[in-house]
């Protein structure tokens, strides 16, 4: 304890901790970046704060490795080798004090930055649940492992070039592994997800309803513990032979962790996405506050939809980011909606009814990535079906170019539909609904009986 106290007061460890905090705060607050945007913002929820901080490890982890290396060069820099070599206490006692102080300061720095995000999440009404805990614990373990690895390697390669070289190498490796996690790069084609997860940095937070799976935490904790032990061993190993043996923990850690790590990093976050219902309207717990406005609109819309032969009986939020809405299974009894990032976010609640009956109670089958022509035709059909239920043709919320391109075919479809006998109208609206439920075929063709 005596030596630990001295190290905490006089070594570079507190500066390493401060560097971590300063680096994180500088990156977080000096840039207008994804971590400030939308529902996934780093200050919105406890778990998004934890996950964004893990993303920032792309920059922070190399920083801790470099800082650890600078601290590890102390004996070389100060020329204390002879003096310390003649003392009675085993080397690992001394190493434990030095490495312990660094670990304490780095972990505290990491937790301090998380606390900053968590405090804002509380302020912004984020839901408290424990998904942040393992994410943050593994992050804290990662900075400790990084610091110790830097320290150990600096002891083995005592040169002023060691800290910058280590930091740059770590940065290159992490950027490569992190980019490989981008869903757009199709990770399985670059590297297996298990290998990618050896990086302590997570990919950017894209889905507030998801969280990191337990298997990821477990595997990363095992791997990072191995890495930390190797760093510590390198720091205290007195001979070249024992330094080679220091590779054992990291190799064993990787060998145990790789089978544990899963192919998918994120899983559904039950704590925030569990459904909360009022009347026929159900939303994720995270969006509970929107029920006040959604419930009346849902009741009204379901009443209108009762004209259908197989009318839906409830309205349910998909609790998914819009990008993945088409992966949610569709059933006739449920009007599947997407509360965030779309019409419900940008329209007034008064207009929600129109949105709910569009496509005869079915959501769009397309994402931003799909072809414009198909999307325009679907938008026109959805606009016309909405008008069929509400009795008034109004634009749906959408990109302006889609609204403008769909306006004319929507009007034509609406006119064509109104001209038909009532039973035929219902048959064609039902056909359009069937397309909306299965996402097979063309809704506008179905709605107009093949005229458009």
């Amino acid at each position, binding site marked *: 304890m*005596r*030596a630990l106290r*001295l190290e905490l*007061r*006089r*070594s570079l460890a507190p500066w390493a901790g401060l560097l971590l905090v300063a680096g994180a705060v500088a990156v977080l607050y000096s840039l207008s970046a994804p971590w400030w945007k939308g529902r996934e913002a780093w200050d919105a929820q406890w778990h998004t704060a934890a996950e964004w901080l893990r993303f920032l490890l792309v920059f922070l982890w190399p920083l801790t490795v470099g800082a650890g290396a600078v601290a590890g060069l*102390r*004996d070389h820099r*100060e*020329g*204390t*080798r*002879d*003096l*310390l*070599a*003649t*003392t*009675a*206490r*085993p080397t690992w006692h*001394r190493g434990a004090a030095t490495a312990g102080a660094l670990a304490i300061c780095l972990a505290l720095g990491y937790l301090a930055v998380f606390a900053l995000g968590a405090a804002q999440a509380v302020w912004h009404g984020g839901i408290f649940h424990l998904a942040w805990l393992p994410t943050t614990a593994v992050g804290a373990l990662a900075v400790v492992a990084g610091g110790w690895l830097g320290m150990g390697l600096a002891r083995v390669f005592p040169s002023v070039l060691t800290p910058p070289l280590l930091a740059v190498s770590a940065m290159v490796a992490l950027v490569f592994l992190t980019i490989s996690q981008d869903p757009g790069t199709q990770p399985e084609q670059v590297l297996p997800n298990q290998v990618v997860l050896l990086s302590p940095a997570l990919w950017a937070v894209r889905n507030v309803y998801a969280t990191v799976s337990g298997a990821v935490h477990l595997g990363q904790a095992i791997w990072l513990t191995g890495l930390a032990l190797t760093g510590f061993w390198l720091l205290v190993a007195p001979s070249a032979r024992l330094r080679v043996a220091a590779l054992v923990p990291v190799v064993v850690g990787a060998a145990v962790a790789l089978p544990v790590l899963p192919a998918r990093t994120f899983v559904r976050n039950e704590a925030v996405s569990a459904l909360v219902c009022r009347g026929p309207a159900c939303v994720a717990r995270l969006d509970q506050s929107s029920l006040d406005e959604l419930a009346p609109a849902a009741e009204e819309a379901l009443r209108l939809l009762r004209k259908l032969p197989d009318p839906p009986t409830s309205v349910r939020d998909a609790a998914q980011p819009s990008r993945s809405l088409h992966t949610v299974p569709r059933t006739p009894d449920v009007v599947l909606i997407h509360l965030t990032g779309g019409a419900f976010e940008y329209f007034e609640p008064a207009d929600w009814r129109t949105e709910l009956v569009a496509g005869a109670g079915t959501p769009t089958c397309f994402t931003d990535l799909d072809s414009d022509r198909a999307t325009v035709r679907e938008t026109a059909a959805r606009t016309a079906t909405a008008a069929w239920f509400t009795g008034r043709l109004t634009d749906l919320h959408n990109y302006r170019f889609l609204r403008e391109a769909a306006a004319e075919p929507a009007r034509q479809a609406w006119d064509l539909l109104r001209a038909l006998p009532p039973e035929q109208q219902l048959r064609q609206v039902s056909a359009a609904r069937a397309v909306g439920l299965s996402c097979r075929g063309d809704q506008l063709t179905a709605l107009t009986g093949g005229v458009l």
Partner: protein
Amino acid sequence: MTAPTTYAWEIEARDLVVKVGRRRTAVDGVTLTMGRGVHGLLGPNGAGKTTLIRALATVLRPASGTLSLLGDPDLRSLRRRIGYLPQEFGHYRRFTVREFVEYMAWLKEVPGPEIPAAVQRAVERAGLADRADDRLKTLSGGMVRRAGIAQAIVNDPEVLLLDEPTAGLDPAQRLRFRDLLTELGTDACVVVSTHLVEDVAAACTDVVLLAEGRLVFQGTPAQLAAAGTAGHAGDSPIERGYSALLASPRQRGTW
């Protein structure tokens, strides 16, 4: 305070050979014994003084021959009983004097409750009490040297090894240091390597003269002085004795 003595000499070396690196033999077959008292280790540059002290301090292992320190075969318990000031006194510049001496006391496994008093005593004996809470990087060279002496004596060593302890000390400090040496030598075996022959004359009970890794002379300062004649170089009898003993054909170089 100390365990009953089970050895004849604090330091006993027989045919001691110590290598620096793989090739260079810096100490070449030295046989000597040292007991309590102050032993001055003299010799020209490159004579092997520092290498001998590093071997005594357990930094270097003998390549051959035997070296027995305090009759203790266990390295860890032996090291608790040794004090060492290296020629290049590496220290943590961000620590205060007191903190660094405390840290060294911890490394020397001085029992925890005794550390604060031991540190205070060592700092006072080294004459640094008024600067004890200053950081080492703020001290002058002479004061850093005294901090080095303080850390060497903090564990009340039975064998105290000081490599060039007076380098950087001003004349007044050197005089005080000689008094400290005399005091330390009453109940410990103190080995002082130095260039300054007058330090040896003033404070040492015994002189060891090395040249090219070999023992040239071991005896009292008076015996060393007696070896010289008026014809030998030097300002004092002991300097002339030193010159006389080193003036062998094996000496090379101009100075």
